[in-house]
Each structure stands twice: as structure tokens, then as C-alpha cells.
């Protein structure tokens, strides 16, 4: 059962509220716009004794992630949050967190990477970290931010996974927009996340000293990276299991890839995070006019649900892929990986890449309307197939 109690909060406060309910042993964080509200709100919980967390106000994001790695290696539940350049500064340690198999949870208020400096929302930060070995969850709205945080812990700490999880939400667009959120009660969260699992051992174990982070040379490194790959392969079934359990317990249904009015659609728009709210509105509008269009929203980008997305997309006539990040000199990330996933089919839909919303540029109904018009043309003629467009750029 869900709690039936609503609170009006922005996405950042939603994240802080979920963190409060999780009550991690250690939070180490450094302020950066637009994540700041998360750490500010969480600091209030610490200041008022509403959590038992040891809060480490580190001097940089590099130290934030380092302290989280160390805390998790010592057997603590560790969390942090960041954005943009902060995530970039953590980059070195992100890989280490994942390779040490530490179930750290990190919120990212997705923001454009410098330069030029820009504090607004896009996915260049998270996409830059996509190969770091972290599980990446994406959130369309504040409710999804909340539920992703709670589920992230269960995914990260699962014995088959033991990997860090990044919970993404769009900077400002989500992090600073107030919406109604229906949180679980503190008791529900406490019962749901439970005690730390038995495989959660670490440095603070007396009498059985453990060496974490040794030098790993040509004779073992490859095998250890293979174990990481194997762990990643087990993540999607675990996410499915966690989502089903969450639905059973709290009546909130999530899927790895959300399908919106897609069952009888001829065309779909695929994208992640907040833009999908606007896409759904557009779909509603066009459906009233009889246009057979739907929306597809991957909620997980790492591991990439390649078979799931390919199986969903194969039957449509035309597909538009929205990426809120570029990959200079190559294909945009979601587009590239979707193309690769579709290759296994002989008959594939017409497909086109749209890069949108860089540096927080609004992706409006009007702009998305041009995507729908392109799709209508492309589905019969193939016009624009495999081309790459930049939405709304002057």
C-alpha cells in the first residue's frame, strides 16, 4: 500500500527526503548547482537530528566520492549527490567505486558540462560517466526521483549486483520544480530497505584484516574486469524483480522501459528524464487528432536494456531518438546504442537522431511537434532515416 499522503516538493528536496528516510550511515558531499538543494536540505536533517548519518562536508567532489568509497569499504551505507563538473571531477573515483563493488547511491541533478560554463540541465555529465561501471537510473518527475532512490538501494545492495547506482534527474527542470510527491512512510522505507545484508563486510572487521584496492597486474586484472561485466549482466533481472516487489508492496508500477500509448502506435519518440513529460503531452494531443504515435522511456541506461529496447522498437514504422547530450564526432549516446541493439533484426524501423535541450534549452511542445511531423513523413517515405538533427538550434 502507498501512504496516501502527499507532499509538495521540488526534485532536489525529494531526493533529500528519500535520503532522510534511508538514513545512510555516511553522506559525503560537496555543493554544486543545481544539486545544492539536496545537500542543503539534507544538512538540515542532520542539524535537527532527524538522521543518524555521519555527514562529511568534504572540500571537493573528488574527496566526496573518495570518502564514500572508503565508507562503503568500511561497511557503511554511503550516499552523495552531485552534478556536471562535480561528476566530472569524481570521474577517476567512479570507476574505482564500481570496480570495488561498493553499493554507493549517488543523486545527479543532470547539468551541462563546461565549457562554456552553463548551470542548466542536460545529460552530458551522466553520459560522460556511462562507462564507469555504475548503474544509471533516470527519472522523469519528482515521484520517479523518489521511487528510484528507494529502489536504488535494493538494486545496489543485491548480492548478485553490489554495484553503485546513480539516480539521475534533470537539473532545474526537475530539481527545482515543485510537484506533488507521495512518499512512503518512514516505517515503510525502513522495513523495505531492511538491515545491511550479510555480504556487506568491510574494513571495520576486527581480527580478519582485509586488503582492499591492491595492485592488480596482467595476471588478474582482466578476470576482475570480467567479474564486473558479469555483475552488470545480472542487474536488469534484479531491477525487474525489485520493481515488481515495489509494485506488490506499494502499488507503484515501474518498468525498465516505460511504454506510453505505444501498443498500437506506428511511430514513437524515445527519450529519457523530464522531456518525456512533454512528449507524453504531445502524444495525447496528437492521439486526439488520430495520429498513431506513442512514447518510449528507458528508465535505465546502464546497463543498457538492449534486447528490451530492440524488441519494443522493432515493430514501429518510425522512431525518433531524443538525446540530451552530444558525442562530438560520433552518434549521440542513446541513438548509438539503440542503433546497435536494432542491428540484430533484418527488418528495422526508420530511425532518426535528435539532439535537444543542451545547456537547459527548453524542449517545447512546438519543437517536439516538428519531430512528430518528421516522423509522419519518415514512416512512409523513409525521408530523414539515419540522419541526425539538432532540435531548435539557431
Amino acid at each position, binding site marked *: 500500500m502507498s501512504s496516501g499522503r502527499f507532499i509538495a516538493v521540488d526534485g532536489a528536496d525529494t531526493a533529500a527526503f528519500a535520503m532522510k528516510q534511508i538514513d545512510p550511515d555516511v553522506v*559525503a558531499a560537496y555543493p554544486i548547482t543545481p544539486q545544492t538543494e539536496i545537500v542543503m536540505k539534507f544538512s538540515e536533517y542532520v542539524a535537527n537530528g532527524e538522521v543518524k548519518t555521519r555527514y562529511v562536508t568534504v572540500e571537493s567532489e573528488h574527496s566526496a566520492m573518495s570518502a564514500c*568509497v572508503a565508507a562503503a569499504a568500511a*561497511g557503511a551505507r554511503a550516499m552523495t549527490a552531485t552534478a556536471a563538473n562535480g561528476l566530472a571531477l569524481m570521474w577517476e573515483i567512479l570507476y574505482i567505486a564500481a570496480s570495488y563493488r561498493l553499493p554507493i547511491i549517488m543523486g545527479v541533478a543532470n547539468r551541462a558540462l563546461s565549457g562554456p560554463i552553463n548551470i542548466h540541465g542536460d545529460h552530458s555529465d551522466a553520459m560522460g560517466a556511462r562507462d564507469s561501471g555504475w548503474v544509471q537510473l533516470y527519472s522523469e518527475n519528482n515521484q520517479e526521483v523518489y521511487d528510484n532512490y528507494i529502489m536504488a538501494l535494493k538494486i545496489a545492495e543485491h548480492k548478485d549486483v553490489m554495484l553503485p547506482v546513480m539516480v539521475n534527474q534533470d537539473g532545474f527542470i526537475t530539481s527545482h520544480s515543485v510537484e506533488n510527491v507521495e512518499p512512503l512512510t518512514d516505517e515503510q522505507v525502513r522495513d523495505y530497505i531492511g538491515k545491511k545484508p550479510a555480504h556487506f563486510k568491510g*574494513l*571495520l572487521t*576486527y581480527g580478519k584484516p582485509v586488503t*582492499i584496492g591492491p595492485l592488480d597486474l596482467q595476471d588478474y586484472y582482466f578476470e576482475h574486469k570480467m567479474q564486473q561485466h558479469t555483475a552488470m549482466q545480472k542487474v536488469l533481472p534484479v531491477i525487474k524483480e525489485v520493481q515488481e516487489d515495489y509494485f506488490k508492496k506499494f502499488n507503484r508500477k515501474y518498468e525498465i522501459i516505460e511504454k506510453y500509448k505505444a501498443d498500437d502506435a506506428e511511430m514513437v519518440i524515445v527519450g529519457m528524464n523530464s522531456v518525456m513529460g512533454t512528449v507524453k503531452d504531445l502524444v495525447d494531443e496528437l492521439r486526439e487528432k488520430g495520429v498513431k504515435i506513442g512514447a518510449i522511456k528507458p528508465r535505465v541506461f546502464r546497463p543498457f536494456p538492449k534486447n528490451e529496447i530492440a524488441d519494443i522498437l522493432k515493430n514501429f514504422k518510425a522512431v525518433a531518438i531524443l538525446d540530451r547530450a552530444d558525442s562530438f564526432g560520433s552518434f549521440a549516446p542513446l541513438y548509438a546504442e539503440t542503433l546497435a541493439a536494432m542491428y540484430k533484426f533484418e527488418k528495422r524501423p526508420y530511425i532518426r537522431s535528435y539532439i535537444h535541450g543542451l545547456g537547459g534549452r527548453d524542449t517545447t511542445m512546438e519543437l517536439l511537434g516538428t519531430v512528430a511531423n518528421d516522423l509522419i513523413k519518415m514512416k512512409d517515405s523513409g525521408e530523414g532515416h539515419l540522419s541526425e538533427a539538432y532540435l531548435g538550434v539557431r
Partner: protein
Amino acid sequence: MAFLLKDLIKKQAPLASGHRMCAGCPAPVIVKQVLMSTDHPKVCTNATGCLEVATTIFPFTSWKVPWLHIAFENSAAAVSGVEAAYHGLANKGELPEDMKNAKFIAFGGDGGTYDIGIQALSGALERGHNMLYVCYDNEGYMNTGIQRSSATPIGANTTTTPVGSQSYGKREIRKDLLSIVVAHHIPYAATCAPHDWMDGMKKSQKAIETEGPAFLNYFSPCIPGWKIPADAWRKLSELAVKTCFWPLIEVENGKWSLTGESKRIADGKAEKVPAVEFMKNQGRFKHLFTQKKDDVLALIQADIDRSWDFYRKMAGY
């Protein structure tokens, strides 16, 4: 408290032999002096560097205490995280009973401390974690092949300050890390030289038992980096102190004092030996003698005199 060798040899060494540190390297000796100075349960973090790579080649480890290495520049941030975990788990009553007296010790070389790790060190000192940071200072990036660091002395021939027709080696004076650390107003900071093991262990014990952040800068002669014989570290450690190249200092709650041979020199009970005595048998300074760079030798002596005057004054002489 005095330490007796007959007691110490009965204790289990925290670092097992068989590691791959160079023959004659004092860094493992330093680790033992620090960790054997108290019987607390200890958790160590280690910056990337010689000590880390040579003691933990998977699937082997020499460490008989819990030990964590993350990266080069963050040993201080790592120890902060372990210490935070200790408190976070204690807040929830989840700390194992036998770890209640645990102490947290970070190791790093001079590259990982003076240079790339100084931000993390400064942050950890300012936040007041209950921890000890130990820098083993071998005056250069030795693990990567003898490059200069901000701890390398003037005139040293390194692979990034090579001697050439236009170069006599490193041109800049060493960074005064102790003063930087002391400027954080932490309760305890000291310098140690491993030949004076009693001084080092007493300081280690104080540093570990101090509530709040403590810092030790340990002199660590480097066999390949300084181009010295494998049996040279003890003599060079002694000469570094006797020449006042590496004074033995202790700063307790802001009060500076000199210890060991440095105190005797300051008190006029021992003579300050000329710097050339420390330098003349080290390959990294050899060019200064063969090329008769007396001006550079004078620069080095002047720098030692300047810093010795400063530390003496700080200690109230």
C-alpha cells in the same frame, strides 16, 4: 613512554616480510614504527605509490591490519571516509565491539601528500577527523621513475630536472609542508627520521592517541632515487638530522619544540654538520661535486640555514 626492543620483537609486525619494496628501503620500517607504537586496532589507507604497489600485488598482501587503497591524491579523503563510517555505524549501534578503540592512519608519499594530495589533506585536517596522516617523504616521485616533487631539494638530479648544459638539477626550494599542516591548527604534528626509532615511535604513539587530526612527516631515503647503496638509509637519516637538513620537530597544540639530535644542536650540545656531509655520497647530488658547483652547494647550505633558523625561532630559541 619508552619502548623496549625486547618487547617489540615479541609483537607481530603489522607488515609481513616478502613484499617487493627495494632492498634497503626504510618505508616498511616507518610503517612498523608507526603501527607498533600502540596496541589499538588500526585501519590504514594508502595513497598510490611505492608502498602501496609493492606491498599488495594481488593475490598477495603484506598488511596484517585492514587496509584500503583508492587512488593517488586521496589517502586523506579515504581515511576521512573510514573514520566517518566508524561514527556512522557507532551512531546506530552497529560498530563491532572490538573496533570501538580503532584508530585511523593514512599513508602517502611526498608526491601524494605535498603535491597531488594536498587538497584532500588540507580538507581532512580542517574537518578535524580523528586520524593520523603519515607522509613518508623520499623527496620525489620515485615509484614512477624519480621525477621531481615539491619535496625535492635544490640541486637534485631527477628525471624531470635532469642535469644538463643549462641545468644543475632542481632549482626550487622544498615546500615547508610542516608549516602548512600546522597552519590548520591541528593538535599534533611532527617530523621524524627513522634512524631515531625511539623518537619516531614516541611521536607516533602521541599522534595516534591524540584526539583529532595528527600529522607525521617521516624522512625516507630512497635507494634508487637518491642513487645510494642499499645499506645507506640509516646513515643518511642520521646525517639529515645532524646537518639540520631534516630537523626533528614536534608541534603540540601550536607549541613548537625540537627533539632528539635537533634539540641538542639548538641547545649547543652538538655541532651542526655542514650540508656537504649529507650530500656528498648521494648520486643525485654527484654532479655538484664533479662539476664543482660550489655556488649551488652554497645555495643549498643557505636554504638549510634559513629553514633551521626559522624552526629554531619557532621552538623558542
